[in-house]
């Protein structure tokens, strides 16, 4: 589907708000949104919520032949799926630019940093190694997919257990989970990526941009780090020029954030381990509490209302051009409502009465009841056609062609069919100026 265009007024407002250090959801410049980590019933399945952005990662493993260049190392395979479930602009199956970018970033973050000991994945050198496959699915896109994907991927890898293998001479036995407990992967460190978005040519910086902030940003800097303050990957996109001090500052902020997020991940893993040990039912089905309506339910949004301290008088005095805010529609004459101020009309005034009636009718009915309105509009238009020749405007066009609808069959209740009839055979009447 085509992307909804971002209006100029939204863009201007967002940039103005960022200049005043205000974000849409009331966060501070360096604040992350609420992160929630849940696990599925299988080992290696993990859901991560970053505000409204939702991501699921699933790790699986199978025995394959190793690469010829590296006969005693296991294989890691990463895949990020962008489905239309996340955003209507994503197309299933098509390798969009964003999808390629995310895939490359995740690979560099996890594979090149050597966070997993691939040599421990080797079973028989040159013949059988474990291929560990990480699939990340985007469930909802509200900005900052990269961070959510990296947290989900590394948490799922830590959570995953592979089947136990024993070698006796030439025989290789793979034990099922019932026979022997599966063993975890050996992970050296946990690289987590932190995204920084830049605005106004690098003047303003925001951590963890939401979707609307992403649409107005100039560029993005992604730093992947672990809690030992080692940078695993760093990437700048969008073509912005960054100063050395800015990059250093970002890396310091990233180290703080990464240590917080790593704590959260470790705690989540521990809780899950305890729950499984205690024999409690754990996993996706259990993590959703029952008998509660969760659709249309929105979490508490922390909104800063502390600075809104001016009195109404002050506001009125300080405002430069405060338009007349009419709280309710003006009623100049009973039965006529006026919203806003139109210009002086140059149209003929004979039609005023009928038009007032029409406005009156339309205001009375609830906007829900389209069928009723439809019929009233038909009646009004019929009355119009019976009027005399009226001077329409001083336009320089020679003749004005006015299309009149046929009288709709009032017995029909369905809106669809009556509209169709109207469109079918309009009658034309020419009126000279």
């Amino acid at each position, binding site marked *: 589907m*085509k992307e*909804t*265009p*971002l*209006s*100029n*007024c*939204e863009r*201007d*407002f967002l940039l*103005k*708000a960022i200049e005043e250090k*205000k974000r*849409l*959801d*009331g966060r501070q410049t360096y604040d992350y949104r609420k992160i929630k980590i849940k696990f599925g019933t299988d080992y290696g399945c993990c859901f991560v919520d970053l505000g409204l952005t939702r991501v699921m990662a699933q790790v699986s493993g199978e025995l394959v032949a190793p690469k010829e260049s590296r006969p005693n190392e296991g294989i890691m395979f990463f895949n990020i799926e962008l489905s239309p479930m996340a955003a209507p602009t994503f197309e299933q199956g098509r390798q969009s630019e964003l999808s390629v970018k995310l895939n490359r970033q995740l690979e560099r973050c996890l594979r090149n940093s050597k966070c997993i000991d691939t040599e421990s994945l080797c079973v028989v050198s040159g013949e059988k190694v474990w291929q560990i496959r990480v699939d990340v699915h985007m469930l909802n896109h509200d900005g900052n997919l990269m961070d959510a994907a990296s947290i989900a991927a590394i948490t799922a890898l830590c959570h995953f257990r592979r089947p136990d293998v024993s070698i006796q001479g030439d025989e290789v036995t793979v034990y099922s989970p019932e026979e022997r407990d599966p063993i975890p992967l050996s992970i050296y460190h946990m690289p987590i990526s932190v995204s920084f978005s830049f605005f106004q040519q690098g003047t303003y910086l925001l951590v963890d941009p939401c979707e609307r902030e992403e649409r107005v940003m100039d560029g993005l800097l992604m730093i992947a780090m672990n809690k030992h303050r080692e940078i695993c990957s760093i990437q700048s996109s969008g073509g912005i020029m960054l100063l050395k001090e800015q990059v250093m500052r970002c890396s310091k902020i990233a180290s703080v954030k990464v240590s917080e997020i790593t704590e959260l991940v470790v705690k989540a893993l521990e809780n899950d381990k305890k729950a499984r040990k205690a024999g409690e039912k754990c996993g996706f089905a259990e993590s959703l509490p029952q008998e509660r309506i969760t659709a*249309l*339910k*929105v979490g508490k*949004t922390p*909104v*800063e*209302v*502390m600075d*809104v*301290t001016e*009195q109404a008088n002050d*506001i009125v005095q*300080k*405002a430069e051009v405060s338009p007349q*805010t009419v*709280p309710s529609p003006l009623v100049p004459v009973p039965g006529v409502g006026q919203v*806003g101020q*139109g*210009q002086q*009309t*140059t*149209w003929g005034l004979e039609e005023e009465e009928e*038009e007032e009636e*029409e*406005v009156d009718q*339309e*205001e009375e009915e*609830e*906007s*829900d*009841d*389209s*069928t*009723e*309105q*439809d019929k009233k*509009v038909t009646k009004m238009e019929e009355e119009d056609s019976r009027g005399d020749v009226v001077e329409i*405007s001083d*336009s*320089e*066009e020679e003749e004005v062609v006015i299309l009149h609808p046929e009288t709709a069959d009032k017995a029909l209740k*369905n809106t669809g069919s009556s509209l*169709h009839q109207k*469109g079918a055979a309009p009658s034309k009447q020419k009126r000279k100026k």
Partner: protein
Amino acid sequence: MDSALRERVGQVLLPGDEFCCDTDGIISLSETVRPEKVLCGPGLRRSGDRLLVCKSGVLRHKEPNVFWIDSQQWRYVPVKGETVIGVVAAKSGDVFKVDFGGSEQASLTYLSFEGATKRNRPNVQVGDLVFAQFIVANKDMEPELTCMDSSGRANGMGVFGGGGLLFRVSLGLVRRLLSPGSELRSDLEKLLPCELVVGMNGRVWTRAADVQKTLVLANLLQSCDTMSCSQRRQLFSRVRQGAL
């Protein structure tokens, strides 16, 4: 059937519920038979002599004989005569393509603005916000918008929007905001002086005295979507105390 419907006003109905015309087997010969006419609004559909419910929601009633289902929805389906907020997506010759959040973009000619002629074109750029109403909106044709009413006056419609914030809410909240005598609107008036443009496609534009207040207002409206009346009053009073 009228009486059967009146009984269920205010109850939650699900698709599949139906109302039959002849509920009583006894026809009174002495009383005059008044033909009862029931006007079905959104969510109700007539099929033969039965009335079927096709959306889940609460049944509402308005005198004399109008019934409809009040359902909660986010996706907008264009309806003729409704005013919406659209974003101008493209300009091709004489026609603007406007995105209003539906399945396709609507077309808006430059002549359907007040006082527009071939030589006096309106100043509309790509990315502007327009407040317009539908003149053609059915499932077989491309939707068309206009920025003037049938007498040629703008009546509040047209291009707008410098300095404010546009955000999305559910269609139910929009209807509640626009209904006459809306409590939500009166509570909002007492809280913050602001400008508000409400489109029936779920888009709301707001502008208050400064950026902070505009953000507060946007967040308030988005969160009171799912609140009951008393919760909303509590929230507004908390905001008022935080402010003053």
